[in-house]
């Protein structure tokens, strides 16, 4: 699906990270690697520390609420101005009701405020932006809250060296509004459901409810130990898909909008690991410092939340007074890959807080 919008803008971004920090060295004894191998991998992938919830009671909803409380308490947004809430997550509060409705109730929002939950992962920020832009095309919708929140660390086996070293938890709130600025917003979203199981959690849905049997540990062909309640990632397939599809998509968008890749100031991508991102930068033909890859080493990969985190961590305060042309790109679960190129800046707030 091609995306073409104008007269829309992002006016604020807030990320909420758990205050609990776990170091790679604290867990590397779980992975059946030699210490030398673990340390080489640490350097290549960018494993250092990650932010994960300290207990299994804290959810993505809790992180989102901490952010909303911060915004309301500091008068950065008022309840009456909100027209819609999009909650994008793979760790919703309940099977039913939608988490966005629970948020609506908690803050006693007006009945006219639309609530919508979207089940999306690594491309969840781009999908959320696209949905927000489409909502803003409707009369009466002028301000959308996009909430990306995922607490997936409880869904990852501590003995899975494919996933555990890199998975982090986080939430982000992005405010999207109508604007007089008619600068083009261009992009594309693509899907390939044939690869849907490349990233999956086998048990916990209707197809395979959690049971004693699904909670038994098994060892896969690569020596990873996990249960069927845990995340499974076919890392090789995901890597090849990303290296092939993402550069192609960005080139097509830039070419069809008669733009030039050199005009883009920053490439703010989903953050799977440093190695994959550096290879992407080389493939696209941009300097590695224009495509930051420092989120996994500082916070971990928080699925659909990584694009706000990489944006705020690297450009935070500057985005409150400057404007850049940026390329957002998210890719992963689905398989889904989506890119949006737009101006970003002069935000009312662009902050990172800890809960």
């Amino acid at each position, binding site marked *: 699906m091609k995306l073409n919008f104008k007269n829309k803008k992002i006016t604020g971004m807030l990320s909420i990270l758990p205050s609990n920090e776990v170091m790679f060295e604290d867990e590397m004894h779980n992975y059946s690697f030699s210490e030398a191998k673990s340390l080489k991998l640490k350097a*290549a992938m960018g494993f250092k520390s990650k932010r994960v919830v300290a207990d299994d009671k804290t959810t993505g909803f809790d992180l989102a609420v901490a952010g909303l409380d911060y915004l309301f308490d500091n008068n950065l947004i008022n309840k009456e101005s909100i027209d819609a809430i999009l909650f994008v997550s793979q760790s919703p509060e309940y099977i039913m009701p939608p988490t966005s409705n629970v948020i609506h109730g908690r803050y006693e929002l007006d009945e006219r405020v639309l609530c919508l939950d979207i089940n999306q992962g690594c491309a969840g920020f781009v999908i959320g932006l696209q949905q927000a832009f489409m909502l803003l095309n409707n009369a009466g919708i002028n301000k959308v809250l996009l909430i990306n929140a995922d607490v997936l660390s409880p869904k990852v086996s501590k003995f899975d060296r494919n996933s555990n070293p890199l998975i982090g938890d986080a939430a982000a709130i992005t405010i999207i509004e109508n604007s007089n600025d008619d600068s083009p917003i261009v992009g594309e979203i693509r899907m390939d459901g044939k690869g849907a199981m490349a990233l999956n959690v086998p048990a916990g849905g209707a197809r395979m409810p959690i049971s004693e049997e699904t909670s038994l540990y098994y060892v896969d062909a690569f020596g990873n130990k996990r249960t069927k309640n845990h995340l499974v990632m076919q890392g*090789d397939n995901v*890597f*090849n898909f990303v*290296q092939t599809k993402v550069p192609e998509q960005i080139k097509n968008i830039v070419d069809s909008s008669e733009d030039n890749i050199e005009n883009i100031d920053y490439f703010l991508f989903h953050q799977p690991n440093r190695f*994959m991102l*550096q*290879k992407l930068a080389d*493939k696209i033909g941009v300097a590695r410092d224009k495509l930051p890859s420092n989120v996994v080493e500082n916070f971990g990969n928080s699925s659909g939340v990584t694009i706000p985190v990489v944006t705020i961590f690297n450009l935070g305060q500057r985005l409150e007074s400057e404007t850049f042309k940026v390329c957002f790109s998210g890719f992963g679960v689905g398989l889904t890959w989506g890119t949006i190129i737009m101006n970003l800046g002069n935000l009312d707030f662009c902050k990172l807080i800890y809960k």
Partner: protein
Amino acid sequence: MKNKIIEILNGIRPEFDFSENTGFISQGMLDSFDLITLVTELDEAFGISIDGTDILPEHFESVEAIESLLVKNGAK
């Protein structure tokens, strides 16, 4: 170039003799994590960036296959 490749391989998995064997991936001498370290060290040693779409198991099965991959990606 071959000697440097073998030196890097030996540094990653010293328990195997890479100069005398082939089938590095299919025989389990290298896993996907080793490939990440290998590509990183080859990039650095030869001053190149191996294309991400070339990081496929068949390009790492033997010293000769790795040499071809390096030449394809600009190594001299």
